[in-house]
């Protein structure tokens, strides 16, 4: 049952990812990336990480992708604006990515992973547990990340502001 679920989710993930890369229209890319992110959220739930699944949907699908969507619409990009690379370069790109995949898989195969026995049912992924970790062991990084956000916000505003002449 769970294997079936895994496979169907995986196929969806890979397909939507491929669409992101190969479609000519930026709008399609964005939309299929949203689909891809939803399937990854599904994987998180499958892995018993409910908190992350929710955060993932909110942050990525809700915030980041909306930002992408806005940008694409704002710049009024369409298929014509994105000329594909020449045939040789496309083949080179695919070959390079394929080689990377092959070598990575080969590396994984040659690596002996530690024994991952089946753990007892845990509530590691629940909000309560992750929240506790965040506000105790990881309090400082958590606070610092708020500063990061603040500076990113200011940076974004400054950069995208229209320059006065």
């Amino acid at each position, binding site marked *: 049952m769970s294997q079936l679920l895994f496979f169907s989710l995986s196929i969806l993930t890979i397909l939507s990812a491929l669409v992101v890369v190969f479609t000519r229209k930026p709008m399609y890319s964005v939309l299929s990336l949203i689909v891809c992110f939803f399937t990854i959220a599904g994987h998180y739930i499958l892995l018993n990480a409910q908190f992350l699944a929710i955060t993932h949907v909110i942050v990525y699908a809700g915030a980041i992708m909306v930002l992408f969507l806005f940008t694409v619409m704002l710049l009024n990009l369409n298929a014509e604006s994105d000329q594909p690379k020449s045939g040789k*370069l496309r083949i080179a*790109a695919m070959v390079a*990515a394929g080689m*990377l995949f092959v*070598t*990575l898989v*080969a*590396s994984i195969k*040659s690596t002996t992973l530690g024994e991952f026995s089946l753990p007892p049912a845990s509530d590691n992924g629940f909000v309560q547990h992750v929240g506790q970790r965040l506000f105790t062991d990881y309090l400082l990084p958590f606070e610092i990340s708020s500063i990061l956000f603040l500076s990113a916000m200011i940076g974004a505003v400054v950069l995208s502001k229209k320059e006065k002449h």
Partner: protein
Amino acid sequence: MTFLGLMIPLLPLMGFLVNGLLGKYLPKGSTGWIGSIAVLASFVCVLLVFKDLGAAQTVQIDVFNWISFGKIDISFGLWIDSLTMIMLMVVTGVGFLIHLYSIGYMHGDAGFTRFFTYLNLFIFFMLLLVMGSNYLMIFIGWEGVGLCSYLLIGFWYKNDAYNDAAQKAFVMNRIGDLGFLLGMFFILFHFGTLDIQAVKELAPGLTANSTLLIGITMLLFVGAIGKSAQLPLFTWLPDAMAGPTPVSALIHAATMVTAGIYMVVRSNVLFAMAPTTLTFILWIGVATSVFAAVIGLKQNDIKKVLAYSTVSQLGLMFAALGLGAFSSGIFHLVTHAFFKALLFLGAGSVIHALHGEQDIRKMGGLKKLIPVTYLTFFLASLAISGFPLLSGFFSKDEILAHAFEQNKLVWIILFASSMLTAFYMFRLVFLTFYNDFRGTEETKHHIHESPWTMTLPLIILCVLSVIGGLLGLPAVFKMTHWLDTYLASVTEPSAALLHHGEPLSHSIEIGLMAFAGLAAIAVIVFAYRKYVSLKAMPEEDNVLTGLPKLISNKFYVDEIYESQITKPVFRMSSWLGNFFDKKIVDQAVNSTADAMGTGGRSIRTLQSGNTGAYVFAMVIGMVILFIIRLLI
């Protein structure tokens, strides 16, 4: 006592600072008085110290601990004993008189303030030199006076020839200083200290005349050769006459050039332990004395004659040191400081009266026109010539007596040199002051006696030149030799090491004195006949032939140095500069740079600026890294 001792060098230093830093805000002319009073105050301190300090007493002032590492401990220390006292009195006393004289002499000069600034700095360094309690302190003073000498020789820096003279003096002194420095290193290495008193106590423990001691003393003496203008490094001193005349009097006659003698006497125990060096010093001194005296015969520049005379007299002092007669050397140093400073100041007064004329062929007949200068100059010439009962007579005679006692040949040469001195000094006097004036009427009209600031020092120095001999009356007069007794605490340790011959009997000594005195008078009379009665004139330079020409051109020593040393050094420098530096060093550097440039130009096409290409390269790189990881 410590306070007074400290004030002695500090007062001229303060004068230097005030004049140097605030000089341009002070009223014009006041800077000369500030400089003079600083030295006078220092002289007063010296006298106060002298009053309280017995002959055998010493004062040690450690201002602060200066260099301290490992076993080496060098303090910034001052040391006062009888030898220091004598030198202090000469430096500050004669120094003050020359300062006073300079107020009149330098009046109206654009560099008036600068002149007194330098003079005070010089006095400060000279005092450090004579008061230093270790060789490093002496070295500071040694270098400092060299610097001031350089600054003052080139005082009128707009004249290139003067600048060259200053440089020549500086470079020649450097050669000697290198010897001094090396000697110091050897002392530090073998004795573990630079403190003069410590070295003095350690030295007698070593083997006499060992290579080490000969080496150290020879190196120290090389320093003295440079500073005191002995053969073969004497040529800078006549050229140093480019400086203002008070400078010649102070630095190049009375004080700085005697630093070498002071240093040798200061380390007399070391030198006494190395008789070979003493013999060397003796012959260098004797040779210099007669060599410079011969050159002096044919010089026509009033200051050049005095310069060669100084070289000659310094040679005489070194001969005394070489004979082991340290106190006699100091005695002659003191009397020489009096009459030579006076001679220079008198010459300055003559030059002042004639508005810069220095050639004695254009003088003459000044006797009536500038009587004070004439009288003092005449007495000083008598003193230096060894006229009986004047100061030079006693000090010279003492040296000659020592020579007679130890080595007859040395005595003969020194006696000849002394007679030559008498001759060229009176040649100078008669040509300058007697007969008729040989310059233009215009000049003659303006001749006037110098102001009191100039004549007062002349008179005081004249009195000192006449009575200076009282410092060291010989034993035959049944009086104590004051200087000898006073310096005993310094020279005694070495006297024990040197075994002198039998002292001369009183009859021989009186005989020698009478002989020398009569000979000097005879020479003076001969000079009078030649230059006054017969009105002989020095020939023009271009009609001279043979030996006189050789002498007049100073035996071509400068030319020989020029062709044998200076030129080859220049040739080597230009070879190094034009060939070695340009062809080899620059070539290596430039071709490295060129190779980098060429390489960079060919590689930079890789930086296309295309992000895609960069990412592609990155991915390929990752793949390669993984493959390498897998294969290994």
